[in-house]
């Protein structure tokens, strides 16, 4: 289209000022297109699923993308930018897709059934008290530099995990174990899990803890007293992995439904600052 000269000038002048606004206004040209969604699913599985999980519901490293929480912007243009440029200061890398591929991935993500949005009706302040006092969560978990070191740091858990995931992690912590160490030298490596390991020393002492690292000849764990313990396997009688979390399952007896709501409200509030 050829613009009339004066109008063209006006467009040029406004262009620079409007750039940011335009970026926000750009929308996915293939939104809802079944072919694009199929292609996006395939690209997602090949490129994104290692961190965000096979169905985008969160993996060991990347957040649940169906949770409806877009920490770095929720518009099409903003998510496009996040995918192509990555997020500095996090593990999210820049990606070298063609634009049409990035849009296809976005079409796929938007096509997913959103995670059930539970009503986070709890009292955040009451939840904070449960976390730090009543339920003893902080014995093992750290938030912003305070708390224990046996379990994962939860300083940003609200931005990374959906409410149903948080509830499941409290009620049934062994259902899906959190990933631990991933060896950056090992391209095909599988991260270790936050699972419970018990070793029996030559002298018969049983020591339980969370495994920090392990190989054919040695094991490094953090015991339940939050002390690091290192062993050569040849010095041990036994090493057993229990494939379950050390965290107690908080049943309704231990944490009433109302208390759970409060706790989730607190956890949900923990975001990037």
């Amino acid at each position, binding site marked *: 289209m050829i613009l009339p000269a004066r109008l063209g000038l006006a467009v040029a002048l406004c262009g620079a000022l409007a750039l940011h606004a335009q970026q926000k206004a750009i929308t996915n040209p293939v939104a809802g297109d079944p072919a694009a969604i*199929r*292609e996006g*699913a*395939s*690209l997602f*599985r*090949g*490129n994104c*699923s290692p961190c965000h999980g*096979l169905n985008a519901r969160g993996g060991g490293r990347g957040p649940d993308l169906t949770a409806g929480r877009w920490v770095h912007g929720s518009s099409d243009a903003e998510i496009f930018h996040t995918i192509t440029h990555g997020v500095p200061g996090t593990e999210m890398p820049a990606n*070298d897709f*063609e634009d049409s*591929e990035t849009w296809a991935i976005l079409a796929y993500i938007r096509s997913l059934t959103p995670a059930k949005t539970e009503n986070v009706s709890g009292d955040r302040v009451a939840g904070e008290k449960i976390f730090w006092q009543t339920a003893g969560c902080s014995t093992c978990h750290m938030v912003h530099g305070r708390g224990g070191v046996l379990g994962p740091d939860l300083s940003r858990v609200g931005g990374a995990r959906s409410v149903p995931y948080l509830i499941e992690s409290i009620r049934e912590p062994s259902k899906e174990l959190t990933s631990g160490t991933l*060896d950056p*030298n*090992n*391209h*095909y*490596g*599988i991260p270790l*899990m936050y699972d419970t390991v018990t070793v029996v020393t030559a002298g018969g002492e049983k020591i339980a803890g969370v495994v920090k690292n*392990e*190989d*054919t*000849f040695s094991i490094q764990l953090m015991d339940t007293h939050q002390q690091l313990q290192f062993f050569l396997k040849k010095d041990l009688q036994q090493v057993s992995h229990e*494939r379950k979390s050390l965290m107690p399952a908080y049943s309704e007896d231990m944490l009433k439904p109302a208390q759970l709501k409060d706790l989730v409200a607190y956890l949900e509030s923990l975001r990037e600052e």
Partner: protein
Amino acid sequence: MRRAIAWLALLLCAGAQAQVTYQRLVGADQEPQNWLTYSGGYSGWRYSRLDQINAGNASRLAMKWTFQVADLGQFETTPLVVDGVLYGTGQNDRAFALDARTGRPIWRYQRNLPEKLQPCCGMVNRGFAILGNRLFMATLDGHVVALDTRTGNLVWDVKAADSKAAYVFTVAPLVVKNEVIVGISGGEYGVRGFVAAYDAETGKQRWRFDTVPGPGEPGHESWAGDSWKTGGAPAWITGSYDPELNLVYWPTGNPSPSGYGGERAGDNLYSNSMLALDADSGKLKWYFQFTPHDLYDYDATQVPVLVDEDWEGRPRKLLLQANRNGFLYVLDRTDGKFLQATAFGKVTWAKSIAADGRPVLDPEVMPNATGQRVCPGALGLTNWYSPSYSPDSKLLYVATSDECDIFTSLPQNYRVGHDFLGSVYVPDPVVRPTGALKALDPATGAAKWEFKYFSNPNGGVLSTRGGVVFAGESDGNFIALDGRTGKDLWNIQLGAAIYSTAITYQLDGKQYVVIPAGSALFAFAVMPD
């Protein structure tokens, strides 16, 4: 006069030192002080007659030197050692020559690569081939180059394929007579695979065998529609060679897209196959396809092991391959006749291998859109890392990956230079993958012993007349085991995953073992009592 003769002798020695002839390559096993080809010899054994390091003294192994490549990524090279000089390649197509006694570099080479390249699995190179005073390297940007052994200077450089369409080389070439044989990578990007030979003197292409037959060629009918154009069947691991039969045995990889077969109905020849090619013409003498119409990424890119042994009462020229699909195959290498296949670990994708060598599939475990658990996983029960055959123990040592994966399958549009996978696999979330080093009896397929690894491996096996087998783990341990029993003799933590297989050589009466790990080469020898 005597002095003149002495000088002449010295000159001749110096000349002989620099020249690796084809005859020397044929007789590589006769000079175990050197390591002359990728697998240590044409038979693909990765075995050495050196015996200074043995089960009695391996516990006294200690580091002699280290060489840092100064680059990151997987270090997959197999160095060559010729008369005191070690030649290796590194990440991003670096290369170097070292004093094999001290590890001090003599020269370094760094190829200036284009910005965007598409190797599936890292900016890797698996090593040189050598002939005369030239080293041959196949590069990530699709070229084959010759470097001068003495300087690292470029002698010739030919473009073999278009890296913009994701044709890349990672393979260590194989020199046969005066030709340099290479195979392409790119099975994750819908390339059309090939094996090609180049004149060692000039770089001129001598022959090329397309691993996906074009219209009018036998095997073309095994591809539906136009699927052959993006059919994959790359050829990214170094083959073996039988000088008597003049046949090059070159294995091929997965059909593309690896995870979805809906648009490539048929057997998809010659993906996942062993090719027997005439070394002079590149003509196909026979082929054997291990995994027809693959849906699991079961590349057959494992080094073929050539063994002459009695089979059912008569001497036979055999080809052994512990295949990524989980079966140890025995073929007659004169005609490709299938003799036997035995599972050497957990296999669920096929119920068995029939008498004609074809798998008996289990329809219950076909990949689908939501995911199907299949063993072995996509990384295979073993993979490209070298096996080793010892003529002393008559065992085939194989590093195995005990992993099952959830395979999903979805159609995907082909785009030049882009991933073409047909969806993906994820490791079984319940059972953590592990690995092992297994000593297999080729006659029965049974494991005589196995040494368990905590994690699944990316490194292969070296065996020696000293009765020691060396292997590298992905958790960074370099280990020495007793080849007869699997007993752990010695191990050392090298601080990074090992993606290659050890070599050995002897210099000044001392046997060295060299292994790459992380960004460094490590050399070990036995310390005095």
